[in-house]
């Protein structure tokens, strides 16, 4: 087709009405002329008109042919098909509503989950070439490989020796106190090496980011970059901000603002508001220690370097370092991990499982619609046969049927988009899993394309089955056949297979949902080792003042070691004030609290222990706590006692350990009075400390399990810590106390910022959020699946009964009882349901491994699975029973007459 022709046709498409009118007029003119000529030849008026028409032939056919010249014939018939489809769908509203509803649920769910999955892809990261970004983690080979992070010397060696990366930048996140005019505030701060910003491909909106000479450990520059939000919130978007100074941290240090980042940029942690040079991360002697590890590094792979190549590069470097520094680097490695895995790794498995689950729902919906369409195509067998007899091509008929199901699915898709929009909004609002702030799942173009693709695929799928069945209409047979007679054996088999498939898919989803629910209940019932109910937790950064006498001496001698400083409020005083708050029944301080992520570990040596190596060198998590920490959190004592007030001194050598220490070194012995000391080597010069008490193991670091099995050690709280955790046991709902507690702390000293205020229940809840999120959605999907499957079963059974009305009538006439009929129909359905359940259970067991990482304390053989099957069987049997009941009420006379 030439371009010109295509152009004419396209124009004609827009002006089809006028074209039709023109054609009508043109043909009318022709007829009139011919008629006039015949009359001139002497024919009568009627004869002339008839003769003219006769000679002209089939006007409609001619018009169609002429119109074809102007239009794209396939498009034209497509249009016709669509109009015809809409008309037939309107004529069967019940069918249409059920089918569109089923599809809307399936397609809507899929689109919603796809939107979420799409929002957490590497591509979604708001950085330059995000799929080339990786994080480097120092790790150690113990019982298993554990992540530790890098030390500064290791990091420098990585930078110097690796060949796989464009650049590497150290990153760590800490909170710092911003001392403003009014409230002091804890601000999430990223300590970043100079290349950090260029690695991410983000530059400052105002001013600049750090220069390499500002990030030198020997003389770090006191400079800071602000987030857009912080700049607006605390500085009123001051345009003169660059060059101003602000006061950060306890030491009242002045930092010069060098830049402001663009809106939306919150760093890798997605919560940072300030950035300072990494050289400020720790004191120079700490930075120089190869054994002090604790930060990850951001790196960008060179364009042609694969992840595996980078990993082997880092492996080689780690082996060299291990040889050069056996004391600090024995069994130490480095892991290269894609950034998107680091940032999204915790939500992705859940979402992918949900994606699979919701795909099942869509399959069930499709099976449902296919079933409905088959049933309809049986009814329409005669119509199709007639159309075939009138010369409709086989391909044309198939196309018509496929078009019809496509129209149906597109309607479903439209409804589904609405469902998806509502669902995404609800999911984000309800989700206990936090999505990154930059990931704003939305129904964008790609999602719309996805929906259309899915629905068209569905349309073809559901249209093809009945379409192919209609492929071979035995014309004479079909025309003779009454509309009532039962459909072919083959189509019955297809429908049965669809029901079995629906039931088995529903079983899989129900079992999955049941397992998730059980799993979450197990998590909720899990004993974390402490009592989380009615506990408020908060953190405070207690500023320090120089003792007056010391301050004078410090003024003269700056080179002298840092003078001792005192907290503005002693912990003891703070606790007294808090205990006085009405509703508070107990209060304690700790250097860190369970599940607050602040714990750190040390190696230790137990007196008389056998020799150890890097793999089994005993390690322990260290917490400094006040004596009533254990009673406040209700951590049980296995033996011994808590600290005496006299032991709350920096020189105290009394310790409390968790049971794990005793089980490893002194099983079956009285642990009280046994000694241990910090430091992995037995030659360590640290003082021996005596055990005064043993407490139960606490899930201190994560639920349902601590990441490593290392036990805990509790040392007496001294006022050395400036960052403290506060736990309050309350007699009233803990969150209702927040305001009064704040006021009490402010009354003690207004310069203490409080942060991370949460009830212990919330902290526990955060740990299980992923499971709860998955459970919740699995429940929704399983409910949808159950509902759709039941609708499907009901539909098929009703259809079956209506098809067998005559047979049932004869049986009744021959003396069959209602019960027999009931048994006949229900038995029929029961076979299908039973087969579906068996297949579904087998599939569930097979799929169990896929979801096992999300489960806690359950297996597929769980009672939950049994329960799911019982529910499904019961509801499905009900769906059979109702049509069966109707069958028993068939009047034999009517049934026979209905033929």
């Amino acid at each position, binding site marked *: 087709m030439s371009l010109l022709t295509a152009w004419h*046709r396209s124009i*004609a498409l827009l002006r089809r009405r006028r074209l039709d009118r023109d054609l009508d*007029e*043109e043909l009318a*003119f022709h007829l009139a002329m*011919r008629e006039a000529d015949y009359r001139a030849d002497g024919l009568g008026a009627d004869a002339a008109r008839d003769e003219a028409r006769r000679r002209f*032939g089939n006007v409609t056919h001619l018009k169609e042919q002429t119109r074809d010249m102007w239009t794209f014939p396939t498009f034209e018939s497509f249009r016709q098909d669509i109009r015809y489809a809409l008309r037939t769908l309107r004529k069967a509203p019940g069918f249409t509503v059920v089918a569109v509803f089923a599809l809307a649920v399936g397609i809507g769910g899929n689109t919603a989950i796809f939107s979420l999955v799409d929002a957490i892809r590497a591509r979604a990261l708001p950085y330059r070439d995000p799929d080339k970004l990786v994080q480097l983690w120092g790790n150690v080979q113990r019982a298993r490989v554990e992540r530790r992070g890098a030390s500064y010397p290791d990091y420098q060696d990585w930078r110097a020796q690796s060949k796989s990366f464009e650049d590497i930048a150290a990153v760590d996140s800490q909170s710092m106190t911003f001392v403003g005019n009014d409230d002091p505030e804890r601000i999430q701060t990223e300590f970043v090496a100079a290349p950090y910003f260029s690695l991410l491909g983000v530059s400052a909106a105002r001013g600049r980011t750090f220069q390499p000479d500002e990030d030198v450990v020997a003389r770090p520059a006191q400079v800071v970059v602000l987030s857009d939000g912080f700049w607006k919130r605390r500085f009123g978007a001051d345009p003169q901000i660059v060059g101003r100074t602000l006061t950060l941290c306890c030491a009242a240090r002045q930092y010069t603002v060098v830049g402001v980042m663009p809106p939306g940029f919150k760093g890798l942690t997605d919560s940072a508001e300030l950035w300072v040079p990494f050289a400020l991360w720790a004191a120079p002697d700490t930075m120089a220690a190869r054994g002090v590890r604790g930060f990850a590094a951001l790196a960008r792979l060179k364009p042609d370097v694969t992840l595996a190549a980078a990993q082997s590069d880092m492996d080689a470097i780690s082996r060299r370092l291990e040889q050069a520094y056996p004391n600090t680097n024995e069994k130490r490695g480095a892991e290269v991990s894609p950034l998107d895995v680091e940032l999204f790794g915790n939500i992705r498995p859940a979402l992918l499982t949900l994606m699979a689950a919701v795909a099942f729902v869509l399959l069930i919906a499709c099976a449902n619609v296919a079933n409905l369409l088959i049933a309809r195509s049986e009814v329409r067998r005669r119509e199709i046969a007639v159309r075939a007899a009138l010369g409709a091509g086989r391909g044309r008929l198939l196309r018509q049927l496929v078009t019809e199901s496509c129209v149906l699915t597109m309607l479903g898709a439209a409804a589904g988009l609405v469902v998806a929009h509502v669902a995404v909004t609800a999911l984000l609002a309800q989700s206990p899993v936090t999505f990154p702030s930059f990931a704003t799942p939305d129904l964008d173009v790609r999602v719309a394309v996805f929906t259309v693709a899915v629905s068209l695929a569905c349309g073809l799928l559901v249209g093809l089955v009945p379409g192919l069945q209609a492929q071979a209409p035995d014309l004479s047979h079909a025309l003779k056949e009454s509309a009532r007679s039962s459909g072919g054996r083959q189509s019955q088999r297809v429908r049965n297979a669809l029901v079995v498939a629906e039931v088995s898919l529903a079983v899989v989803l129900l079992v999955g949902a049941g397992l998730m629910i059980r799993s979450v209940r197990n998590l909720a019932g899990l004993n974390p080792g402490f009592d989380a109910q009615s506990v408020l937790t908060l953190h405070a950064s207690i500023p320090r003042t120089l003792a007056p006498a010391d301050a004078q001496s410090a003024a003269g001698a700056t080179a002298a070691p840092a003078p001792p400083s005192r907290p503005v409020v002693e912990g003891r005083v703070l606790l007294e004030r808090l205990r006085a708050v009405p509703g508070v029944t107990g209060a304690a301080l700790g250097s860190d609290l369970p599940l607050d992520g602040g714990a750190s570990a040390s190696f230790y040596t137990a007196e008389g222990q056998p020799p150890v190596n890097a793999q089994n060198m005993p390690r322990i998590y260290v917490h400094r706590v006040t004596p009533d920490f254990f009673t406040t959190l209700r951590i049980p004592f296995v033996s011994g006692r808590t600290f005496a007030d006299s032991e709350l001194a920096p020189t105290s050598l009394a310790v409390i350990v968790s049971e794990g220490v005793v089980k490893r070194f002194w099983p079956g012995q009285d642990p009280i009075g046994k000694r241990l000391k910090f430091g992995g080597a037995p030659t360590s010069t640290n003082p021996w400390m005596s055990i005064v008490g043993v407490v139960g193991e606490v899930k201190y670091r994560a639920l349902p399990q601590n990441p490593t099995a290392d036990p805990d050690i509790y040392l007496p709280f001294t006022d050395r810590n400036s960052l403290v955790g506060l736990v309050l046991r309350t007699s009233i709902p803990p969150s209702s106390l927040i305001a009064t507690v704040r006021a009490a702390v402010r009354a003690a000293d207004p310069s203490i910022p409080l942060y991370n205020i949460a009830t212990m229940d919330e902290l526990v809840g955060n740990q299980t959020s992923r499971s709860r999120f998955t459970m919740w959605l699995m429940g929704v999907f399983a409910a949808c699946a159950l509902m759709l499957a039941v609708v499907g079963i009901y539909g098929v059974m009703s259809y079956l009964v209506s098809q067998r009305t005559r047979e049932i009538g004869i049986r009744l006439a021959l003396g069959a009882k209602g019960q027999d009929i009931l048994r006949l129909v229900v038995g029929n359905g029961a076979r299908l349901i039973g087969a579906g359940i068996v297949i579904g259970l087998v599939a569930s067991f097979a799929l169990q491994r896929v979801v096992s990482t999300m489960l806690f304390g359950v297996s597929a053989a769980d009672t939950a699975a049994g329960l799911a099957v019982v529910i499904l069987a019961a509801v499905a049997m009900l769906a059979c029973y109702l049509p069966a009941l109707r069958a028993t009420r068939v009047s034999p006379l009517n049934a026979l007459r209905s033929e």
Partner: protein
Amino acid sequence: MGETKKSAVGDMLPGTLDMLILKTLSRGDMHGYAIVQFIQGASRDVLKVEEGALYPALHRLEVRGLLRAEWGTSDNNRRAKYYRLTTAGRRELETEAAYWDRVAAAVTRVMQTA
């Protein structure tokens, strides 16, 4: 009407009708009915154009840009659609006519030698 064998244009070589239409219109603008009459008359009633073939052909030629249609008034004062040959149509006619001459001559030669 006692007559000898008449031929519907469609029975002849494909494309012949298009050529005849183009040739007819090379004499001047005409409406569809006039084209039928002209071809019938010019062929001394040997060639008879079917309406069922004429109008699709006219529209096909128009879509191809070989004809242009305009509404005008007929001799008996009725609104009628007049077709006019475009430049492209004129070129097409030349090609078709040359081809026809060759084919017709070839057919004649075959008939004479046989």
